[in-house]
């Protein structure tokens, strides 16, 4: 399978009972690109990310990651996944969490480097249960980065993170993308959407619009991304 796209989602359908969470969605994320998934709550962003990482089996359609048809365990060592809630072991230290997630991906891990990125060097020996919500979110991001993944899947990574650190996160994402890492990130925050190279607007499990922030604005006939988002998703800005 070709590695032209880091993520290749082709006509994927997934239903939970009568709810159609993904309704024939097709999207392709290029290597080294920061692709933002935008959409309201329940639009299918998390389901799509889970399908990409192989946690959800599509009813139909295919998903390929870094040229490998999913599910494929071996390719997961090249994927970093950050869940929406900080999924960490609360009763061990920050460093022990990082070393564990590095080890299960078969890497020694760049623990010192990621601790610096998320500014948790001073708390590396702290038990996670003693950290604030924002610090846990930072630790969770560090766990997704620690094995130097080629593809980073981030499900609303900056929830609970203060604005200053959020800016630093995005600077780091941009550096990673420049170094060849592909990033698929879901978000509600328009300021973050502006930082993505391409956006996919999802609602009711369908891709409503796709393109760079400028292209999305142009498609909606507005200069404001938030207005474009509301317009294209069939809502009004009033």
């Amino acid at each position: 399978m070709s590695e032209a796209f880091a993520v290749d989602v082709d006509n994927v359908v997934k239903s939970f009972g009568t709810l159609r969470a993904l309704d024939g969605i097709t999207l392709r994320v290029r290597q080294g690109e920061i692709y933002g998934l935008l959409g309201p709550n329940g639009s299918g962003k998390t389901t799509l990310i889970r399908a990409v990482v192989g946690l959800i089996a599509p009813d139909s359609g295919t998903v390929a990651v870094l040229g490998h048809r999913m599910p494929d365990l071996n390719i997961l060592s090249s994927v970093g996944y950050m869940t929406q809630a900080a999924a960490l072991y609360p009763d061990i230290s920050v460093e022990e969490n990082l070393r564990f997630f590095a080890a299960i991906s078969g890497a020694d891990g760049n623990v010192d480097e990621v601790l610096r990125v998320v500014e948790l060097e001073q708390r590396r020996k702290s038990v996670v249960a003693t950290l604030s919500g924002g610090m846990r979110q930072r630790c969770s991001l560090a766990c997704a980065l620690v094995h130097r993944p080629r593809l980073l899947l981030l499900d609303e990574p900056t929830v609970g993170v203060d604005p200053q650190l959020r800016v630093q996160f995005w600077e780091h994402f941009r550096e990673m993308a420049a170094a060849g890492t592909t990033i698929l990130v879901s978000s509600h925050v328009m300021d973050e959407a502006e930082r993505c190279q391409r956006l996919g607007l999802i609602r009711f499990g369908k891709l409503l619009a796709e393109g760079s922030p400028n292209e999305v604005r142009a498609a909606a006939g507005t200069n404001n991304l938030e207005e474009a988002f509301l317009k294209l998703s069939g809502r009004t800005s009033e």
Partner: protein
Amino acid sequence: MSGHRVAAITRRLLHQFRHDRRTLALLFVAPLVILSLLGYLIRGGTSAPDVGVANQDQGPAGATVASALEKSSKIHAVTINAADGDAKLKDGSLVAYIVFPPAFSQLAQQSTIAPEIHLEGSQPGAQAPVLQAMQDALASLASSAIRFQPHITYLHGGPNLDQLDYFGAAFIGLILFFLVFVVTIVSFLRERSQGTLERLMASPLRRGEIVVGYMLGFTILALVQAVEVLLFSLYVLKVHNEGNVLLIFGFEVLMAISAVNLGIFLSMFARTEFQAVQFIPLVIVPQVLLCGILFPISTEPQSLQYVSDVLPLTYAVNGLRDVMLKGADLTWPSLQLDAGIVAGFCVLVIFAGIGTLRRRIA
């Protein structure tokens, strides 16, 4: 299977326990508390119940038997007035009272020995020592020409074997099985509820690596617990042991591995820790009732004996008792069967755990 990844899971579990002092206390202090309580209950109490004796006999026989009762170690004989007997049974100060009626000696000469034995009756366990003491005391009436001197031999154990030896052999394994099961099922469920299982499933970890990593981590802890329980039972409580200590340890290892994997397997059927704890009355309590710890399986109704025969704990308890009370070794076919079935159950639950651990959420 990658040894590196399995070791990472095992190491992480041990790190978690190092920080979690309460769970460590449950694993290493609770068994000693339970075993100490059991030991004190069985060996520390005054086992002889209070029994009233009222001698109204006008001849010598009543006094002879009453004197023998006073010397009995099975009961604590207290001289009472027959008229007070019922009141003392009601207020609980006596479990029974015995009356030697005025014509007791006269009837004895006519070959009828007729003491009146009044039992409180609501405690079946308290009746046996009273009747036993009475039987022993009546032997004192036999003529001096006839001496009651049975020759008793024991195939296993001996006259000093007591209830703690009988229960202790089984409890050594049961405590380990129960505590390891509870800690495993709750720990594994926490993986799910805190979202880390989703993260593990989005990594290159194989399902077998997760189960084996967990199994090794918990088994290391369980083995430390097993050594502690064994040493405490043998050297502090002085539970009787005729067998090889390594065989006892071997049974403990098999029970620990079974408990870990049963916990992993059953955690798949619970969504919360609260639901997980509900497996204790469903899975553990029936096994404890039917595995022969409390009631010999041969005395169970036939239908329950069939159930006991398929419970792995039955074979574990039987094996431990055979080793400790009868000195069984692996040349005994019965011990081979017990060890084989417990080992087979281990393998079964390992595969059940791996089989039910789903990589995909939906």
